[in-house]
């Protein structure tokens, strides 16, 4: 297997007159934690949306394991082994915490309308496994005690963890996290860092868009810095911290 899991080639995405992603090319190393940072409006979330199929790119190609995924629908990309979370937590508030994670198993199970309605063997085989796997991922993020609560009733910190558990349940090779630390306190953020490391140890590649620099510098193997839809720097955390262009972008240029 190649060392590169995700590759983007000359991706462009514009919204009306605004160019959100401008001929962006980057590589994501397999089983690394890569952070994508940049000031507001740099195109970070657009990048995740384009990679996960929520937006189609205007130009360019994205490869996942050397297979073209740009142009596929989101559910097809998930099937290829890419999962994501959202900047504003998108939990299924009308379902229990456990059921939320069980939805994550959708892509790894097959029972259709007929076999579900008639409780055919396929459905009865799959169902217990779905429950077990969902509980496994809930335990991993530490939400096992609130498994049967309505998801709408849990605090924002737990919602973020729930989204991660749900994304893990799709059994991805690569997981995209969109500002997972937003709304978390210091202690929760530290736990999140530990969790992301655990995810990496499971053999999953992690791409994280995050504003919390302490977290980013702490967990990232690689950092990509975006500004106005362009990649302006790339490297290890120490390299990024001392990169003059990055400092200028974040702090403003000295005259």
């Amino acid at each position, binding site marked *: 297997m190649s060392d590169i899991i995700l590759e983007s080639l000359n991706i462009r995405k514009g919204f009306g007159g605004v160019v959100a992603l401008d001929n962006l090319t980057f590589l994501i190393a397999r089983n690394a934690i890569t952070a994508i940072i940049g000031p507001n409006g740099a195109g970070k979330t657009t990048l995740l949306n384009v990679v996960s199929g929520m937006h189609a790119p205007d130009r360019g190609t994205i490869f996942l394991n050397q297979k073209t995924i740009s142009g596929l629908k989101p559910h097809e990309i998930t099937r290829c082994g890419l999962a994501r979370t959202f900047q504003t937590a998108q*939990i299924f508030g009308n379902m229990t915490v456990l059921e939320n994670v069980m939805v994550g198993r*959708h892509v790894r199970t097959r*029972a259709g309308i007929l076999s579900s*309605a008639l409780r055919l063997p396929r*459905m009865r085989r799959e169902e217990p496994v779905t429950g077990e796997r969902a509980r496994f991922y809930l335990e991993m993020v530490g939400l096992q005690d609130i498994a049967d609560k309505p998801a709408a009733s849990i605090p924002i910190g737990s919602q973020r963890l729930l989204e991660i558990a749900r994304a893990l349940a*799709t059994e991805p090779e690569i997981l995209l996290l969109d500002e997972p630390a937003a709304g978390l306190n210091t202690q929760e953020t530290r736990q999140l860092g530990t969790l992301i490391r655990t995810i990496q140890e499971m053999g999953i590649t992690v791409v994280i868009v995050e504003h919390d620099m302490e977290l980013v510098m702490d967990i990232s193997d690689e950092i990509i810095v975006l500004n106005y839809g362009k990649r302006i720097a790339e490297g290890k955390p120490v390299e990024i911290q001392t990169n003059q262009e990055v400092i200028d972008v974040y702090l403003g240029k000295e005259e």
Partner: protein
Amino acid sequence: MNPVSDIMKLNRHIATLIFAVVIFLLPLFIKNPYYLSILVFIGIYSITTMGLNLLMGYTGQISLGHAAFFGIGAYTSGILTVYYHVPIIVAFIAALVLTALVAYLIGVPSLRLKGHYLAMATLAFGEIVNIFLNAAVDLTGGPSGFGEIPRIQIGSLVLDSDMKYYYFVWIVFIIIFILINNLINSRVGRALRSIHGSELAATAMGVNAAQLKVQVFILSALVASVSGSLYVHFVTFISPTTCNIMFSILLVMMVVVGGMANIWGCILGAALLTILPEYLRVFEDYDVIVYGFILLFIIMFLPGGLSQGFAMAYSTIRRGRSKA
């Protein structure tokens, strides 16, 4: 497996069984034949509502045109048996095929729409079907409809009494109930509810929301068509007013009053809105106003519908008992 979900699963089957027994015994306590016919109508409307609830309550997609599918079922069954002397079972299947086809053609474009726009599209569809039923006089009998639709015959058994039809309708109800109850407690059911919760996240979980929405739209249309066929062979007469826009809205009300995303709600909603107008006749000219206030009261104080009310009452009683 965890014990709690096992108990809940067991409860689901036991509840269905208890309900089936109640339905089976109920006619023994009913002396007034008029009440029996009301129960037949409740059964028919419960079936329609159950299908609509799958679409509205579980998947979160509104349809203000479901009366049209009820009408397609009723008219296809009626026309084929009366004018073409087709066996009832064949007419019934033909109605299902036609409904599936129409639901597919309507569902694919309109389910790309969301919220109010979907409501408008389905409303317009319902109106088109109703206008067609009024205008195609040669085929449908026009505004005055047509009658002498035969009773259902199974082998040598003709369902010629309300009692026989009662059992037939409620057996059909229980079969559909079991199938839908299985469906909502499955991978597909979770996918449907996830679309309701967040369509964006559902697709990110690998749910093909666009396809699933069309499938569930067709499914709920088929259930409406079945109930339409059941209706027409019971009443033995059909006209366009039976399946006009008011009926579509009544069906939506039955879902909401019964309780969205609660399979038992469909029976409660259908029962209340079928029985209520009968009892409100004592108010004579003011019955509509009283009816409106009762609905308003339910929506305001029980946003989860009657099924939520029952659940709340049940847990209050249980809490009271455990305290004592």
